[in-house]
Every structure is written in C-alpha cells, then in structure tokens.
C-alpha cells in the first residue's frame, strides 16, 4: 500500500504555474528524497502534501485517506524546516510541548513524549534552555524533536540541514538515518545536496522545472540516469559528455567521433538507435581507467594530463583528449603528474548514451 499518493497535482502562484500534472507514490516506511536545483518546486510539492498550500487541481492521499481538503494538523504529518522555526521565546521543553498542550493531551502523556523525544535526540540537558542559547545543530535537533512528539506516520523535511556547516551536517544526516531506521515511518526529504540524497534515500525523485525527471533508487539514478539533466546534476565532478554518432557496422553498433571508436556490444540499449544518429556519450570519472593495457575488444585514447586534484581518498585528474576535457577519478596511491601522457579507456557497458536532440537515455 502506498503511504502517500499524489495524483495530477497542479500548483500555481498567480500566473506562475509551478507544478503541473504531477504524479508521485511513496511506499509505506520509505525514505524518499526530492532532489533538484533551487526553484524547481520541491518545497512547493512538500507544502502541498503538508496542506500548507492549496493545490489548483489534483489529490493528495496519506495513509489511504484523501486529505486534499484536510487541515495540515489533521493529516497525520510532522514537518521540519530549514530555518528550524522554533518558537523563539519558549524553552526547548515549551517548544516540544506547545502543540500537545494545545491539542489537550493529558499532562503525563505530554511529559512522557517530551522526555522520550529528548532522550532519543540527546537534548535532555537542553530542555530548559531557550533557542538563542543553542547552536544551529542543537536547534535543528529540537525542531526534529518537536516533529517527533507528534507521533506522526509521515515526516516531511524541507532542507533541514542546509543552514549547518559541513561537519554538523554529516552528523545530523546520520541522526536522521537512525531516526528513520528506528521509527520506520514514511519520510519525504527535500534537498539540493546530492550527497544527502544518495546517502539517505531509499528512492530519489530528481526534479527540474516542476517535473519529476526520474524516480528511482540512488543506484539507478547514479548508474542509469534517465536523461542529460539527471546525469549532469548528480555526481561530482560531473559525468563526462562526449559528442559523437552511432554507426552500424555489420550488426554491431559503434559510438564514433574523431578520437573514439567504441563498439557498443555491452551497452544495454533501451530502444535500438539508428545509423548516424547524433548522440552524447556519458561516462563517470570513476569508470574511466587509465594506463591499463586495453583488453581485447576495448579501446584506448591518448590523453594529456592537464591538472591533478588530490581529494584525499582519491585523486581527480583533468586531462585533454583531442578537444575534450575529461575528468578521471583514480586511486590516491596512483602517482600521476601534470603534463604526463596517459592512455584512457572505459567499459561501454557502464557508460550512458543520450540522444543529442531530446537528451533522453537510449
């Protein structure tokens, strides 16, 4: 059963249509990440699910109920925001308990829930402080705690870690993952940080211009991007793109340009290409091998090393192949010098082929 189903959703602000005909299903207990560049409508979609904005058309179902016209508080959701949005003049305890008090829960129950949430998030010793007396990371823990005490089935996160520095971000990311594992609730998480998306998600929905470009597991998104946008949005450094054409030789398709002539026997075409079709070949930096003697049936191209960027765990080598600038990720142990000549090759089975015109995966 789907925990959340969004059907034919349309949202616009005045004349600006942000979402059109959007379909989305989230499974029970799933961690779904909405990933996309700024302004693509991620928050808008999340707010529509939460009931904070009125959709123009379409329906939202949560837990099998049509909640399209429900108040946010009646949807069985909890939400965490980027700016923490704590009630500034209340103590941490007050922040956690306020919603429960308004809902007239019994005192003992409120106390129990606040205590449990604080325990879980290691903020028990902060309960009597006010938000100004907390660090950013602590504030976001409190905000998560406030979501936690609601005992909701669905958690919505809108870029909860974007205001934190890198170290805290990594720390809280783990915390959120733990939260999901222990609670098993359904979560939708908005971010424009691909690391967060890849590490947290069961599935990722990559959005652009209000449209979901691809919905799949992190592996699928990373290894078999559905179009050029997804391919270039995910991965750092980004995928290398090489222009070329498809050539049919006998019954074997080849990818061909001035430098490369790659037999595509191992490439899993979704639909068969045509002879002479202009394409972009995409290959991730870590899928390019350097210097290994090409195995039979493989190929090799000469490259001039331009720049070497050690990142610690591995090294990114920028090199020039003909007119193309290509990035290659190699093991940190491998010594490569600038202005050195390399022989580079890659496994066509792990590359991606896109139609030049439509940008869709072949």
């Amino acid at each position, binding site marked *: 059963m789907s925990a959340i189903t969004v059907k034919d959703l349309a949202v616009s602000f005045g004349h600006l249509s942000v979402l059109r005909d959007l379909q989305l299903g989230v499974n029970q207990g799933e961690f779904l990440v909405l990933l996309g560049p700024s302004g693509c409508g991620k928050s808008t979609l999340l707010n529509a699910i939460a009931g904070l904005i009125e959709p123009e058309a379409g329906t939202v179902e949560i837990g099998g109920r049509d909640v399209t016209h429900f108040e946010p508080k009646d949807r069985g959701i909890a939400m965490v*925001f980027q700016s923490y949005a704590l009630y*500034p003049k209340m103590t941490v305890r007050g922040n956690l308990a306020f919603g429960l008090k308004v*809902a007239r829960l019994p005192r003992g129950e409120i106390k129990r829930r606040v205590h449990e949430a604080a325990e879980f998030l290691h903020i028990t010793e902060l309960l009597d402080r006010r938000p100004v007396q907390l660090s950013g990371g602590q504030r976001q823990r409190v905000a998560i705690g406030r979501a936690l005490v609601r005992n909701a089935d669905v958690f919505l996160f809108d870029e909860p870690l974007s205001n934190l520095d890198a170290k805290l971000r990594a720390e809280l990311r783990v915390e959120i993952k733990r939260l999901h594992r222990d609670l098993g609730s359904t979560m939708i998480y908005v971010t424009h940080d691909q690391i967060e998306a890849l590490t947290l998600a069961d599935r990722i929905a990559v959005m652009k211009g209000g449209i979901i470009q691809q919905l799949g597991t992190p592996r699928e998104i990373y290894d078999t991007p559905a179009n050029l946008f997804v391919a270039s949005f995910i991965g750092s450094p980004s995928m290398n793109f090489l222009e070329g054409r498809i050539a049919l030789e006998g019954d074997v398709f080849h990818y061909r340009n001035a430098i490369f002539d790659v037999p595509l026997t191992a490439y899993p075409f979704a639909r068969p290409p045509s002879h002479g079709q202009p394409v972009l070949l995409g290959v991730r930096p870590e899928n390019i091998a350097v210097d290994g003697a090409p195995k039979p049936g493989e190929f090799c191209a000469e490259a001039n090393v331009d720049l070497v960027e050690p990142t610690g765990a591995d090294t990114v080598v920028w090199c020039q192949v003909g007119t193309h600038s290509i990035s290659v990720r190699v093991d940190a142990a491998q010594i490569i010098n600038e202005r050195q000549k390399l022989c580079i090759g890659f496994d066509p089975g792990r590359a991606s082929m896109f139609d030049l015109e439509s940008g869709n995966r072949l």
Partner: protein
Amino acid sequence: MLMRNLAAKIALTPMMIIVAVVYVGCILWTFRTSFTSSRVLPTYDFVGWDQYAALFRSTRWIVSLENMFIFGAAYILGCLIVGYLMAIFIDQRVRGENTLRTIYLYPHAMSFIVTGLIWQWMLNPTLGLQDFVRNLGWESFSFNWIVDRDLAIFTVAIAGIWHGSGFVMALLLAGLRGIDAEIWKVSKIDGIPAWRMYIQVILPILLPMVLTCVFLLSAQAVKSFDIVVAMTNGGPGIATEVPAKYVMDYLFERSNIGRATAAATVMLVMVISIAAPLLYLRSFRKERQSGAGK
C-alpha cells in the same frame, strides 16, 4: 578611537555645549525656582519645601495626578491593544493594505489639539454621536460620558487611543513582517490556533517593540495637556484636570511661578522614574542577547 572623526567632533563641540547648557540650565533653573516664593516674576529667596507642601495639599493637583494615571493606563493599554489588532489585521495580506495603513496612521499626523476638537464634537451629546444615533431612530440611545464626572477622563483616553493606535500599529506591523514565515507553517502543522500564536508566541517576540511603544506613549501621557484643553478644558468641574495643565495654569493664569515650577519638577521626577527602569531593562536585554550570541 579617540582621534577618529576628530574634525567632526571639534565642529560639533560648541553645539553640544549649547544644547547641554540650555537643557540642563533650564532644568536646573526650574528646580531652583521651585524652592522660591516667586509669583508673577521669579524671585530668588528660599522657602524650602513650602511650594511642594502646598502642591500636595491642593485637591486639584491630587485629582490631576490621579487623572494622569487613569488616562495613562487607559491610553497606553488601549493604544497597544487596538494597535496590535490593527497590525494583525493588516498582516493578513488584505487587499488595499497601503490605503488602510495610511488611514490608520492618519490620526497620528494630527496634533492633539485637532484630535481633541474632533472628539469634543463627536462626543458632545447634543451635536455628535448620540444625536446622530437618535436621529437614526434609536431614541433612547445615550452616550454622554463627556459630561459625566466619573467617565469624562475616559473620553479623553478614547481620543488619545484614536490618535496613538496607528503609530503602535506601524511599529508592530514592521515587527510582524519580520517574523519567519516557517514559524507560521509549523504552527499550522502543530494545529495551534492563530490567536494563541499571536498571544503566546508572537507577542513575546515583539516585546522590545512593545516596550518602545510603552515608553513613548507614557511620555506622551505625562505631557498631555493640549488634548484636555481642546476636549474638556479640565471639566466638568476639575474631573479631567491633568498635571501639565496645572503647570500651565499656575504659570500664566494664576501667576504663581513657584508653584508651577514645583509641579513641573514633580512631573520630571515621575518621567525619570518611569523611563529609568524601562531604559535599564532594554539595555539589559540587549546585553544579554549579544552575550548569548558569542
């Protein structure tokens, strides 16, 4: 640090000295004169606390003081409540917001004299509101507070509230606009009704601004003189006398400079005793906040 803007500091020094001499000088002169028996013209004898003793034996002065507190309390509270409600109303992103804001703020552009005259006319039982409603057909309607000894001071407060609420609205609206939109989203998800948010969450955030309003309004309340003169001229009887009017009357009509300066000194002491704790509180809060930011 000391040398920075030296030229500017030198240029401003004479001006600072003049200001200091004139302000402090006048205050000191008033203080000194309150210990003399000056009548039409100031004299420089010394009669100790005589003027103060006479002042506090005078029924009119005591009534004036009482009125000042009643008026001040009603005026400040009224301005805050009405101003906050208007700010909340405008903050709902209503249509014609700019027009409304101008209308709300308009009374503040008028002097207390004009305000007093308008309300004197509005509340006059035979000319204004009461007459208007009776002409509409509600014959038994009566609103004659302005001629009622016990209630007249509240009509002055109503006029003051009409005058001052727009100002409070403008200040608090700026505060409301500064509140993080995500706090409102959270409150919707938590299911907290808007009125509880406005009282329990938003008001504490606006507290520094409310304090500023209280501070400015109380100064206004202590000084209030023109509004009373225009509306009731202290009547009926002495029911709406206020200290500032007492000072003016003794200074000019009754030609009793000694008594007037004694009354003025008492007023100054009152202003300081209201202002000092408020100013202290504000600087204390600021310090604490910047301290927490470290």
